[in-house]
């Protein structure tokens, strides 16, 4: 992929629509494929992990073109290592970065060489954490282990799945609940709808990159889908709903977002090189 960017499309964009704006260029400090980002509706800001610079970049919400970030968490005190994912708790003003067996937490206004204020890690956590999302209503921090799911276990040798922690979990803390079983063990990028306590996760059965996330030697997995779980689900529980599959439309699902006002689920697909919007009121009621 030769051209990284963050493009903004109108809600009703369809077909080969032109973005209303796009963030790209030397000043942005983007590197290769951007694997995650977060929108902060309170501050009207966009957060992006920089995979090579080991930085968390914050842009104005209306950023356009070759613009510099307004803040960056960057430097030896940050503990950042190959950051691929980021999440924002817009209510309590904290940034969450999952990396390997840790989740790093920074205050929203962090800038420069700043150490995390909390680190969730340790054998009781059961992490690998590849991706993270926050439910600020129910005070939950939710992780998916994403990579290294060989034999149904994560990097820690624990059952792969969606782990639900207290939002303020710190150190070697056990999860409140662990959703396991087919689907949850292959969960990747996630988001939540706090109003009804649902977790929306892209599910990618098959090869998700191996222990280092760079072993991609086969073709895409056509059985991808979006799975929907409750934040109260626990144990070997299948998704309550599946969207776009399995074995239907989605081939290699990647990103996930929800538009609660319209009760829509939006998902991107690498193999189809497309972004789909599904209307799914059943998932929001």
């Amino acid at each position, binding site marked *: 992929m030769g051209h990284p960017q963050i493009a903004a499309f109108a809600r009703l964009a369809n077909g080969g629509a032109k973005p209303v704006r796009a963030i790209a260029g030397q000043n942005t400090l983007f590197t*290769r494929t951007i694997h995650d980002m977060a929108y902060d509706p*309170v501050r009207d800001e966009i957060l992006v992990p920089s995979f090579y610079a080991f930085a968390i970049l914050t842009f104005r*919400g209306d950023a356009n073109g070759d613009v510099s970030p307004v803040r960056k968490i960057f430097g030896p005190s940050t503990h950042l290592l190959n950051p691929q994912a980021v999440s924002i708790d817009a*209510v309590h003003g904290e940034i969450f970065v999952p990396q390997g067996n840790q989740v790093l937490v920074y205050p929203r206004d962090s800038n420069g060489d700043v150490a995390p204020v909390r680190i969730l890690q340790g054998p009781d956590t059961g992490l690998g954490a590849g991706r993270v999302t926050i439910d600020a209503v129910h005070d939950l921090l939710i992780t998916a282990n994403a990579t290294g799911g060989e034999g149904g276990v994560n990097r820690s040798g624990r059952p792969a799945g969606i782990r639900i922690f207290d939002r303020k979990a710190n150190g070697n803390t056990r999860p409140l609940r662990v959703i396991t079983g087919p689907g949850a063990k292959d969960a990747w990028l996630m988001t939540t709808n706090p109003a009804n306590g649902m977790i929306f996760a892209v599910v990618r059965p098959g090869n998700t990159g191996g222990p280092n996330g760079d072993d991609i030697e086969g*073709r895409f997995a056509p059985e991808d889908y979006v799975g929907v779980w409750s934040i109260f689900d626990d144990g070997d529980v299948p998704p*309550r709903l599946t969207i776009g599959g399995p074995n239907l439309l989605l081939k290699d699902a990647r990103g996930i977002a929800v538009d609660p006002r319209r009760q829509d689920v939006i998902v991107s697909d690498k193999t189809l090189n497309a972004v789909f919007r599904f209307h799914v009121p059943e998932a929001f009621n």
Partner: protein
Amino acid sequence: MAHLVRAWRASRMIRFLVLIALVGTVTQAVLSRGATRQTKVIGSERLVSVEPLAETNGQMCVPESVAASPELIASLRQENLLSARRQSASIPPRPGNSVKSQVAARKPVSTIRDPRNAFAGLAIDPIRNEVVIAEENNFSLLVYDRLENTPARAALSEPKRMIQGEKTFLEYACSVYIDPETGNIYGINNDTLNWMTVFDRDARGNASPSRKLHTPHTTFGIVADEDKQELLMTIQDDHAVVTFKKNAKDQDAPVRLLQGPRTLMADPHGIALDSKTGLIYVTNWGTNQERKYDVPWRYGKVNWPVGRNNNIPGSGKINPPSITVYHKDDKGDVAPLRVIQGPRTGLNWPTSIAVHPDRGELFVANDTADTVTVYRTDSNGDAVPIRVLKGPRSMIKNPTGVALDLKNNELWVANFGSHSATVFPVDAAGDPVPRRVIRSGPVESPSPMLSNPHTIAYDSKRDELLVSN
């Protein structure tokens, strides 16, 4: 007496008329208050009233103020969310199988997808008069006649041959090389498939590669040393150049590795070989990090680059973009012979590079500057380009590929942002009209530039969808 009666009646009539006049005056005064209403008769139509709207200073719908206290907004939001918490404090019932089946099979209400081919990289075959284009939107390699020129009124040019389909092992092919002797086509997949694929010259459709080679993750640029029968590739993740035998296949190991902090490589992309001097030129976007290098060879393969799992936390670096110069046989942690870097270079996401040995010139595609910059091959430091191609007449838009036809002295540019490949005389400068254009869509067709759309977010303030490549 009659006279008195007439006088009384006249007086009463006068008072009545005066009263009517007063009522009319007052009514008129009330109705005309503000002096902004008026009644006009225009032709046979009657305009009843004109009333100016309140002053809005240009905006009828004022968006939520970004400058409003975040804490206030947060508290309001939290209040709403706490209300939501009360509504969802317990485990909800699971939907029935009928509902699950309906939802799983539901079609999307909208789909953002560019229906056209998006040109990313290219290579010229002057022997067979063809150009091969690496195309990212539909995972294909496209072969056009070298002299193809899409007429101004035509929507697009169809390729002579197209290699595309699941058997091809092509995904986001960003670079391509053509074997001058056989015409075989070498394609590089960047970060979604770790394979280099080789196709016979006449391959078409859903063809299996004649051979494929396991390559390091994030291979971006490729160039061949025909004298030594070797292939050199840049590796973004590992800030490295690896060299394979040209006939390598399957799990063959590289024969040489250029990697380490002294190389100054940082997110390398394009690579070019000067066949006269034996020098290689590498374009770098600028970010990298520190890693431990005293580790065993990965996969047990000698000369395989040291991977990201050896990176040191917090060691990220942010540097300006650059062109680093090495001898083609350099290996290990070797410093570049020269570095072109600085604000006067005009480098901005330098994605692809080509060298003209006879002219002693380097051509660089700068993606987000919409330029091709040209330097002397012996440039060093903060060098000003000797020529710059840029402007609306040139049609150069998000160029991610550049190639030279040394036989016909032509410069080719792949424009990811405008569904086109443009051809110029090799000495073109300024804002030149292309000598020829190959288009995959109408001139004005929008280009979403989606390429491996990975993560998305909903911007609730603007009601927009954010999509990252």
